[in-house]
């Protein structure tokens, strides 16, 4: 059997066995509906409410500020559309960044078509939204600013505290998509000063299909789903009890192991990117070299194309991802790589290796051993190598 080295933790993480154990009773004998009055309903209700406390504790929120959703995408949609629908439409101005996940970006594009004024903020070469850029973009009618905490493709962590303060000075609500950070680095909603924050369980060793929106007390949202009025009327539909319980357990574990995990991932990530940059010429590290997610290594290899690299890595049991056109299903490489100013031809050669808790130095050594050969092989095949046209 081929060795399996999973380095795609920004896409999803494995379920922690302790999380599975916490979920198991709710997948089997404790199948009650939390809205039911009888004892089985109340056992399920307790499972959900305990999880709400666990998730709230991880991000320093109050339990009643947590709205469980089906994941990060739904949380982003609820935050943005729910807020705008709760306000009378008066041609408000809303701001986001050019490097958001599509769960935010496409909602803003939709609102633009609906007549809202929308600003997509540019980022600097490291993928950072500079606070001055936001300051200049603020208008008297700016109602919402939504900027992600850390970018999934290039790992850059945004100065959220400063950005939220600028939004508030201008009277706007501040939302952040923290799908990539909750459970991986410290997230404190009070310290950051955010009004709303989205996160997802499967990025922190929890199950897929569950996430939450943190909504600060006093922020008013319109519901997006009509029905049984669950989650303080903001998310109708019977709760995903096993998923929510798993999310709670995952959040608790994430808090316990965080500092150790950060240290481990920072070290492995630095070893990996350092070795690859040293061994493979014409390679660029994308994103901020310092303010980035621990264990997040995103590189562009000139003269070669990302999908080819991924498939050759996969042959050797290494699982990674890319922002090349061939992996995006269109002819353009990722909007993030273009936003940081990379030319198309370089962006096509992107590879992301995102490490997780279970990766070891041995895994890093294996990638360092095989990746230079893959790049060399593809470059020998490339008509661009050595022409200096790129």
């Amino acid at each position, binding site marked *: 059997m081929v060795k399996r080295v999973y380095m795609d933790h920004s896409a999803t993480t494995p379920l922690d066995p302790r999380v599975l154990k916490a979920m198991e009773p709710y997948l089997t004998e404790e199948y009650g509906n939390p809205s039911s009055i009888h004892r089985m309903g109340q056992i399920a209700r307790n499972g959900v409410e305990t999880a709400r406390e666990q998730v709230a504790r991880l991000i320093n929120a109050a339990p009643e500020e947590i709205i469980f959703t089906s994941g990060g995408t739904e949380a982003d949609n609820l935050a943005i559309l729910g807020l705008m629908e709760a306000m009378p439409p008066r041609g408000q101005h809303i701001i986001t960044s050019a490097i958001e996940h599509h769960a935010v970006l496409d909602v803003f594009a939709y609102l633009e078509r609906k007549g809202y004024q929308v600003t997509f903020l540019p980022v600097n070469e490291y993928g950072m939204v500079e606070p001055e850029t936001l300051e200049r973009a603020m208008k008297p009618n700016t109602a919402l600013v939504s900027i992600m905490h850390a970018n999934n493709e290039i790992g850059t962590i945004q100065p959220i505290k400063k950005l939220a303060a600028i939004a508030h000075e201008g009277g706007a609500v501040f939302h952040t998509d923290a799908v990539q950070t909750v459970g991986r680095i410290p997230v404190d909603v009070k310290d950051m000063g955010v009004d709303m924050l989205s996160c997802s369980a499967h990025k922190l060793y929890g199950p897929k299909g569950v996430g939450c929106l943190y909504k600060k007390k006093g922020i008013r949202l319109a519901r997006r789903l009509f029905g049984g009025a669950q989650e303080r009327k903001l998310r109708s539909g019977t709760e995903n009890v096993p998923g929510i319980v798993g999310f709670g357990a995952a959040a608790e574990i994430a808090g316990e192991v965080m500092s150790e995990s950060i240290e481990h991932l920072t070290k492995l990530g630095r070893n990996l990117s350092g070795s690859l940059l040293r061994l493979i010429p014409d390679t660029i590290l994308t994103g901020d070299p310092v303010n980035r997610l621990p264990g997040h290594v995103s590189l562009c290899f000139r*003269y070669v*194309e990302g999908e080819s690299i991924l498939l050759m890595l996969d*042959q050797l049991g290494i699982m990674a991802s890319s922002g090349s056109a061939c992996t995006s299903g269109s002819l353009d*490489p990722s909007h993030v790589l273009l936003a940081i100013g990379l030319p*198309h031809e370089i962006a096509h050669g992107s590879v992301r290796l995102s490490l997780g808790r279970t990766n070891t130095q041995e895994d890093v050594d294996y990638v360092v051993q095989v990746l230079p050969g893959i790049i060399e092989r593809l470059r020998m095949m490339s008509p661009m190598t050595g022409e200096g046209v790129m």
Partner: protein
Amino acid sequence: MALYSEKVMDHFLNPRNVGTIENPSGVGKVGNPVCGDVMQIEIKVEDNRIEDIKFKTFGCAAAIATSSMVTEMVKGKTLEEARAITNKAVAEALDGLPPVKMHCSNLAAEALHEAINQYQEKVRSNNN
């Protein structure tokens, strides 16, 4: 289900006829690095036959596999036979390509045709 057929993976992982030819009879280079695909095909023609053919490709697995396949299909063929090779035939020889990758097979056939054109133009201008 796998993304690509076994044949595509075989040609991607073990590409045939990679490289360049010294003093080629014709060269075809198509695509654009901006779009993520560039293919270069060089041919050596003798007695109206493709005696040798080499390729170099920048692109995804489908781009590399179609380049490799087209070189294998036309090696030893007459120019007329080679010209008759369509992108569809290349894709079929690979047991199909995912729909979003069909443009890769266009490029391989185009690069081949361009190399033949270049050779024939050279011959024509030499005869004049």
